[in-house]
């Protein structure tokens, strides 16, 4: 296991480096002169020169890259054009809000997917199963940027149960964003739990347990469900990464002050250091989460030998 962790960690290094390189080169993809484009239309030549210097664009490319890597290693992600403050500061301030939202969505997904998935598996092929499968397909196809506004119309504007946007109202303010973000995940998980549990229910050990006098609910919940959860947990961990990117849209819908909203705001204001840093942090978190979920495989199911 230790060997696997080390090897898997070492594999992560070139990929991470590749991503860092990709993000570094983004600014050089700006068509024309990046400095002129960043300084905006009608900028004076001295403004453009200042931008060029601030971004280090006047240096040779290899030197820019080395400086970028060196700064990253020291945790220095650059200075914001807009506030002239360290972009790290802004990111650290926004990060908790995004994590909170991701966890909220995950809880919603679990609360919805477990009962639905289990019922669907037990009554496989019946009309209940068909209705639930249809729900799952609709859930996957429903864009969050539509579901969110629909929730706002129903529960924030008409019923006035929750605030329309923002994060100031405590628990009440996280309900609608979590529902919006959790729906697609709930649909995916429902499908996974259904397939996984239905397959376990056909296994001989379940039949044996029932033959030995174990009640059917006990056979399902104590025996089959435990084994059915293995693939589900992995998918859940993997999906946590995509929740982080889903947050970009959900945060925009609900004006939720997280990392995703910061990214979009920085793009609109052409604050490139902030854009680069936000993308980097989201991407690195995504890689870390996937790394951890990979390791969980072996912990959850000792039968799986990680080699």
């Amino acid at each position, binding site marked *: 296991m230790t060997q696997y962790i080390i090897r898997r960690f070492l594999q992560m290094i*070139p*990929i*991470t480096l*590749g*991503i860092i390189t*990709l*993000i570094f080169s*983004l*600014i050089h*993809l*700006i*068509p024309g002169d990046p400095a002129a484009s960043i300084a905006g239309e009608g900028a004076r030549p001295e403004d453009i020169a200042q931008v060029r210097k601030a971004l280090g664009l006047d240096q040779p490319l290899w030197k820019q890259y080395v400086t970028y890597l060196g700064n990253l290693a020291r945790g220095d992600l650059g200075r914001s054009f807009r506030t002239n403050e360290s972009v790290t500061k802004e990111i650290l301030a926004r990060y908790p809000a995004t994590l909170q939202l991701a966890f909220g969505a995950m809880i919603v997904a679990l609360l919805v997917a477990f009962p639905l998935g289990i019922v669907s598996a037990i009554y496989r092929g019946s009309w209940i199963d068909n209705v639930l499968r249809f729900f799952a*397909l*609709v859930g*996957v*196809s*429903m*864009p969050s*940027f*539509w579901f969110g*506004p*629909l929730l*706002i*119309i129903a529960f924030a*504007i008409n019923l006035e149960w929750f605030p*329309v946007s923002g994060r100031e109202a405590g628990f009440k303010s996280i309900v609608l964003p979590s529902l919006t973000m959790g729906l697609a995940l709930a649909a995916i998980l429902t*499908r*996974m739990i*259904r*397939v*996984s549990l239905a397959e376990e229910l056909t296994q001989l050990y379940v039949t044996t347990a029932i033959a030995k006098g174990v009640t059917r609910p006990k056979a399902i919940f104590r025996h089959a469900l435990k084994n059915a959860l293995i693939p589900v947990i992995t998918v859940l961990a993997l999906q946590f*990464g*995509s929740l*982080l*990117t889903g947050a*970009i*849209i959900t945060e*925009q*819908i609900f004006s939720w002050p997280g990392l995703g909203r910061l*990214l*979009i705001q920085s*793009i*609109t204001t052409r604050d490139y250091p902030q*854009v680069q840093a936000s*993308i980097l942090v*989201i*991407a690195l978190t*995504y*890689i870390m989460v*996937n790394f951890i979920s990979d390791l969980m495989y072996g912990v959850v199911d000792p039968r799986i030998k990680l080699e």
Partner: protein
Amino acid sequence: MNKTVKHLIRNFAFTSGLLLTVTLIVIAIAAPLLAPADPYQQDAARRLEAPSDQHPLGLDDLGRDVLSRILYGARVSLRVGFSVVILASVVGVTLGAIAGYFGGTIDVLVMRLCDILLAFPGILLAIALVAVLGPNLNNVILALATIGWVGYARLVRGQVLKVREMEYVMAAKALGAKSPRVIIRHVLPNVINPVIVMATLGLAGAILAEAALSFLGLGVQPPIPSWGAMLTAGRRYLGLANHLAIFPGAAIMLAVMGLNFLGDGLIDALDPKYRKQIG
């Protein structure tokens, strides 16, 4: 009748998906005939007007007919969808086939590039690319194709690795067929079914991604009617003019659902092995 076709027709998901998709394509083609008004025609005095007999889906924040804009929006969605799928599948299938067939350095290079792109959340890379290239229709297509080809490359490479060892491929080689001929005539026809399934689902994905980017203000720019961009405007008037958010969103959902159903049905008919993997 062909067994596969019979199987498809009996599949509810496939037929309803096909119906929705054909409707979408017809709407896109016939938009100028179907639209009751000019999608760009503004009427400031009647902005945000609720649905009526004259304007079944109401008017938007600039007083433009929402129904006409949704009908024309189908053109944008499909244009992005098809362009992305064609670009991504051509690049992906070519690179995947070459990597799988020849192996060695080229295989390592292509696969490492895939690893990096897959380690990066797709929509994030698309956002990053559009942010630096500038938001417009072509850049959206380019960004989505840049992240889209990876899936095809990996799929085709995996299949090619298997097919490469088959006796009929060896026989073709023994008879003196050159590599391109072997790949095109003998290897690719064997991997085409899963590629069709992936392309159908990819079309849905591209339409959804375009709408997402446009919703974030990073996609198709006004005044071009894009469903995603219409939703952004709709979000600003929630409570005042809900029809601005409800109808474009419903259009996106129906289009994406239709294609997902179609893809789901195709999996059953064309690629039962894939069905086993996803359940």
